[in-house]
């Protein structure tokens, strides 16, 4: 990067908030995805602006000089959305980490993009309110990153995803102009829904500098149960039946046999290792109706052929049931050193078919693929256990992933439920959007970012 540009960026954000050493820049060449940029693709600088004005100045300069800008929160995305692309600016929003407003009367939070999701949740819950979207990365992910990826989590089945909570945004455009979308009202039809356009835009349309979020009252209580099935179809049927009966659990997590076996071996939680599926179900709401809901779900699970049902009687027991779920990751990470989590998503009823496909693909390419799913919303985390230093195996893994995507789309599903397209899946995007669909998106991008400086390569490929 030209010294002069570094100088000007330093003037904007101050000496302490720029990084240019080789070692520092190297650390922006990866994110939580399995791609990593090349050594020659190291960024020119990483800058940490403190507010929207500084952000606007940075973008204006970058736009004039046609320097790529990579917006970044905590760098936990799994789609290659924040890796450096050569002489570029890594724009880290983490210094903008204030909760500006928590409005109890209107059930609204106004936050800066760098606020950590889990921190916002705990602050909100202290007021008896609730911000439901719960990506598993919430202890570190930023709200800005959540909005840019439209993150979701286990609670999606009942409460929806980030998109359902974003009421308005302040966005800095590539030109350096600052716009506001949406507002503090639940109802708002003034103009196009620009808020939704920027939500899930993966840093390609603008930089989000302020977010207005909808909150809801915190559910009074919750309870957890676990049901074990010897056949995957049975579990799947139970899930459909539960929802058809009008009971909507807050979470409905499905673990497959590979997970079950490894969890049992690792954490000794008492799961039958020959079972094909475990459902971990949490219900929440008013205390009085919880027991009723649990009864109903128990009934349905039994009818669907559950071979074991455990219902937590105390918070400690609930904790014990969740221990199984929480040890899922460490349990499989012992098996192979590298773990890749895909998140293909299919309509709920196609879960058994998709799991069968996953099995077939795993067998075909001789790779291990475990499945952990948010069963309520069809979001399947196909977890590939491999070793990235094994070149030969790696090439099989890549082929298997390609086939996974195709299989998901064929089953009326989507490439990604919540992880985003990023750089990893951009070559598959037309599988779903079609050429015309992609072309329209390209034109929208053109209007907002004519010089293609914002996160180039993401969504649309090179």
């Amino acid at each position, binding site marked *: 990067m030209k010294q002069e540009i570094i100088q000007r960026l330093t003037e904007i954000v101050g000496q302490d908030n720029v*990084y240019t050493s*080789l070692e520092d820049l*190297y*650390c922006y060449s990866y994110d939580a995805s399995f791609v990593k940029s090349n050594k020659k693709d190291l960024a020119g600088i990483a800058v940490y602006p403190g507010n929207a004005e500084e952000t606007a100045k940075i973008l204006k300069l970058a736009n004039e000089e046609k320097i790529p800008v990579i917006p970044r929160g905590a760098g*936990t995305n799994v789609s290659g959305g924040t890796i450096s692309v050569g002489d570029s600016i890594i724009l880290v929003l983490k210094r903008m980490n204030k909760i500006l407003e928590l409005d109890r009367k209107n059930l609204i939070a106004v936050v800066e993009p760098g606020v950590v999701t889990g921190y916002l949740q705990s602050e909100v819950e202290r007021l008896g309110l609730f911000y439901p979207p719960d990506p598993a*990365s919430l202890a570190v992910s930023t709200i800005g990153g959540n909005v840019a990826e439209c993150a979701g989590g286990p609670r999606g089945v009942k409460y929806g995803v980030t998109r359902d909570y974003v009421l308005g945004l302040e966005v800095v455009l590539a030109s350096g102009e600052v716009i506001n979308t949406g507002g503090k009202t639940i109802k708002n039809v003034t103009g196009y829904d620009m808020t939704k356009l920027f939500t899930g835009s993966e840093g390609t349309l603008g930089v989000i500098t302020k977010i207005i979020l909808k909150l809801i009252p915190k559910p009074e209580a919750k309870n957890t149960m676990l049901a074990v099935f010897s056949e995957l179809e049975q579990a799947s049927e139970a899930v459909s039946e539960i929802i058809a009966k009008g009971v909507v659990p807050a979470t409905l997590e499905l673990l497959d046999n590979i997970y079950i076996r490894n969890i049992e071996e690792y954490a000794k939680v008492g799961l039958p290792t020959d079972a094909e599926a475990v459902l971990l179900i949490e219900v929440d709401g008013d205390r009085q109706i919880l027991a009723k809901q649990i009864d109903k779900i128990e009934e349905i699970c039994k009818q669907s052929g559950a071979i074991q049902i455990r219902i937590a009687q105390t918070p400690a027991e609930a904790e014990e049931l969740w221990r199984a779920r929480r040890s899922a990751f460490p349990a499989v*990470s012992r098996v192979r*050193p590298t773990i890749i989590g895909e998140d293909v998503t299919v309509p709920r009823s196609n879960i058994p078919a998709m799991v069968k496909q996953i099995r077939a693909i795993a067998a075909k390419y001789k790779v291990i693929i475990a499945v952990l799913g948010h069963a309520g919303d069809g979001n399947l985390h196909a977890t590939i256990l491999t070793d990235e*230093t094994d070149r030969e195996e790696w090439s099989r893994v890549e082929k298997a992933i390609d086939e996974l995507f195709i299989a998901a789309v064929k089953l009326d599903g989507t490439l990604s439920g919540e992880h985003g397209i990023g750089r990893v899946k951009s070559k598959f995007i037309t599988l779903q959007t079609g050429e015309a669909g992609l072309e329209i998106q390209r034109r929208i991008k053109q209007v907002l970012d004519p010089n293609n400086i914002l996160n180039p390569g993401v969504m649309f490929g090179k």
Partner: protein
Amino acid sequence: MKQTLASWEKEVIRCIRCGACQSVCPVFKELQAEASVARGRVMLIRAVINKDSDLTDGFREKMSLCLMCKACVANCPSGVKVDKVVEAARAEIVRKQGLPFLKRLIFRFVLKNRWVFNFAMRMGSAFQGLVFRKGPHGQGMLPRMPLGLDRRRLLAPLAPQSFRSQYPEVVKVEDAKKRVAFFTGCMINYIYTDTGRAVVNVLKRNGIEVVIPALQNCCGAPVRINGDYESARDMARANINVFLREQVDTVVVACGTCGLTLKEEYAELLADDPVYAEKAKKLGAKVQDITEVLVSLDGFRDKIQDEFQDKLLDGTQGKGLPFNTELSRPKSPASIGGGRQRAVKSSMDSTNIQRGLNPPLNEVSFKVTYHDPCHLVRGLKVKEQPRQIIRSIPGVEFVEMAKPDTCCGSGGSFSLYHYNISAKINDHKIEDIKQTGAEVLVTGCSACRMHIADGLSRQHAGVKVMHTVQLLEMAYEVDR
């Protein structure tokens, strides 16, 4: 112990780059740069292993910016041993480039910066005279306290009133019911002799004979974490020889870092040593923190509890007794349903009194909070024992601070190289301590004690700092 950095490849590729370490790394909390979090360190190390990068000055500095606090390790879903790979990287630097790692850092950060320099001088004067001593087999000089100092250069006389020079090698107790060896560690020996004294007094009062081998030397952690495996191994072998000679089942430590070093690191360092691999394990199996020893003593807790209940029943209790806290505490099986009777019986037992088994417990009316030293809580996994001891002292009001197990920022020599960051990390700790309103901060490691005391005085907070056993010693009314 794996020899080269490259041999750690299997460990570094287990990092799935999830970034979870961002929520716990104290250094990252201050610096926010990706290169300052565990994920960044591991990726940089991986780059060196893959020959994408070299052992540059920049790399060296990033590696020095780790507190070795293990917070990331405890929180990592893949259980990546970040501290171990950072240590291996430091060792690689030493192996390839000699020891300039330390020197350069000292020149660059210590001499350039008055604050740091003053601190170093203070440390220096405190440490003068402790740096070398003869090895047990006369095989040269061993660094006693090589904190940030080049081990070949410094030769100075021993401090005249070091802890070990104040005590005989065996502190005898009549009719001892147990015999332990005490590994003092450098800071207790040269700086915090009061902690050492408390360890001896408390053990003595409980009828335990204490052996304090004169030939013990520094545990070696400061050189090891700075990558000097060779010295670390020498020191390990020397200590192993000294302690395996003693007829004891238990080697007591009063410092988490020394403890972890003796208990686990020696065995790792010497895993390939045909003679010492086994010996290291043997020593490791004997190592216990002083609080572990005390809590596991027969009837230790009952004794304190009964004594306390006696006072309550006799109406001799003072104001501010944490009556409810005491009673709501889970009782040990022995004390359930028989507290009072037992108490009366045991305090009437003349043989016990003679043996000093049942020392009167003085009331200590302090509001107390506890800081978990990194290597004690995540290394030796000692968390409840010190709290049990503190809670069992009559008059003490125990308040837990927010995040008691977050690093205080000392990180051994980290505080010398990176004093500013270290002080900032420490500020959070001081703030959490202040929030509790405690008058006494109790901890289990001398390095934490020094760093926290430094922070408290910087912020003019009138909080006393002491080791857990010192609080107990007060309750025993020993030497007051």
